[in-house]
């Protein structure tokens, strides 16, 4: 075997890898640099503003409060943004960019974490946009109790939005294909909830397990008492468990 001898030690260069912040920025860029990503973001903003305007100007004046507007305005992007979260994860497999992503960042935990943080940043931005449009609409429409939105209420709706996003990411991690993850995200909890309503014997158990019940109440800013425990158990089952299992799968998975 021929050997070319180069004197001295050949060691890796002392160039630091990307910081978590940079990876999050890159993931945010990935969410918005494709046509489908831009469409989803655009639609989310458009429907949020539309819903806020409609809620602010339509219906009996007495029913129109800032809380009501926020409650409704956050729904459109609560639906759209988890799809972006799902695509952030599953796109790596369907578009096969995982080959590049994990070759550049071999520590896959950092990739998952940066995607999760990017997804949460998108959700927070979406919520801020919804609040802003709600406040503007409430101001222009002159609805009652314009500034009646307390810190506690705000905390509840924020938590609901962020949890919805983590949920989407978690399903994306487990299911890998966007279609499967999106369908599962929208139908499984509903089917589960309907099951609980049909079978009366399940009622007492279901309030601990049905994620939509406690999350919806949270999004409506009305969660209290035992409801927090129901939220904890149901989201452990539906959000935390798939998140942990999906991440564990990803760390071991062969990237092709």
């Amino acid at each position, binding site marked *: *075997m*021929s*050997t*070319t*001898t*180069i004197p*001295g*030690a*050949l*060691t*890796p*260069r*002392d*160039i*630091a*890898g*990307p910081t978590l912040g*940079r*990876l999050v*920025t*890159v993931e945010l*860029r*990935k969410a918005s*640099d*494709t*046509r*489908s*990503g831009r469409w989803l973001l655009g639609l989310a903003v458009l429907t949020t503003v539309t819903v806020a305007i409609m809620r602010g100007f339509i219906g009996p004046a007495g029913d129109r409060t800032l809380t009501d507007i926020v409650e409704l305005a956050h729904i459109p992007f609560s639906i759209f943004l988890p799809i972006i979260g799902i695509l952030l994860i599953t*796109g790596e497999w369907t*578009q*096969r*960019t*995982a*080959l*590049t992503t*994990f*070759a*550049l*960042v*071999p*520590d896959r935990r950092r990739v998952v974490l940066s995607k999760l943080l990017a997804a949460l940043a998108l959700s927070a931005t979406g919520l801020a946009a919804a609040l802003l449009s709600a406040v503007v609409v409430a101001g222009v429409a002159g609805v009652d109790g314009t500034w009646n939105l307390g810190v506690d209420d705000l905390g509840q709706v924020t938590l609901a939005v962020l949890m919805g996003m983590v949920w989407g990411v978690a399903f994306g991690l487990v299911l890998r294909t966007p279609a499967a993850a999106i369908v599962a995200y929208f139908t499984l909890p509903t089917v589960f909830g309907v099951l609980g309503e049909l079978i009366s014997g399940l009622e007492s158990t279901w309030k601990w397990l049905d994620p939509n019940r406690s999350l919806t109440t949270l999004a409506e800013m009305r969660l209290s008492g035992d409801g927090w425990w129901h939220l904890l158990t149901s989201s452990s089952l539906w959000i935390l468990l798939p998140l942990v299992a999906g991440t564990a799968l990803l760390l*071991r998975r*062969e*990237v*092709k």
Partner: protein
Amino acid sequence: MCSGPAAPIVQSMITVEHLFKRYGGHTAVQDVSFRCEPGTVTGFLGPNGAGKSTTMRMIAGLTPPTSGTTTVLGVPYGALPNPGREIGVLLDASAQHAGRTGLETLRLTADVIGVPRARVHELLKLVDLESTKARRRVGDYSLGMRQRLGLALALIGDPRILMLDEPANGLDPEGIHWMRGLLRDFADRGGTVLLSSHLLREVEAVADRLVVIAGGKIVADGSKAELLESAGTLVKATSRTELRRALATAGLASTTTTDGGQLVEADPEAVGRAVAQAGVILTELRPADGAGLEELFLSLTATQPHADRQEVAA
């Protein structure tokens, strides 16, 4: 950050040792070992499904090996502080987001590995994907353009090592010529190249070393000159049956070539003596050179399941 492992002194940029990969009952890679040294182009040759891509994915830490080790610059791939600045990896040119432009794809990589955006345009110019081509979506690229983009992605971190899986696929003859020049130049400046192909001709012109893999096993490994030498003797006779019998009697291992001759693992004199004793009438007797390498490649790879063919490689 500076707590990286104390790297040993190494002369090889890529080291693969006793690598195995099993999928259920199927062994895709079996006891593969080789090294890539600075200043050389190593051609990783083998038919489709021989285990080339699996081996390369294991080097890049994308596929966990069943057993064995791979290192890049003396450390496991995952321990490289910033892999994109050490080794340019192109495993599949089609594995890019179809909805992103070529420009955007390069920008993302530049951002991840921390090279200035200006470098993106240098690379686009280098691979001839400037201006309007750069702004087209990768989904609209031809395979050749994707290979060029993949090469730009591999080179953007100014690495010392390139690992490319079938980079010539989809390139036109001019593109192949251009890529050979680029890789040769890269190695001549001290870089290390590992490139795979299922076509001998594609790598023959540029490689210094050849590692031939078939059925998951290394069947030949050496400099191009060594492999040419060991390619043996090409012999043809009026009767192929008599020729084979004579060679077998003399204990000379041989394989049948595609054009009806025999490729013998011996020098021409030994072959001449063997057939003279048997009274076989020869029509051709010559050292197997250039063409012999091709015959060797075919014989090593085409009929792998037969144990008698494997011993040719020994």
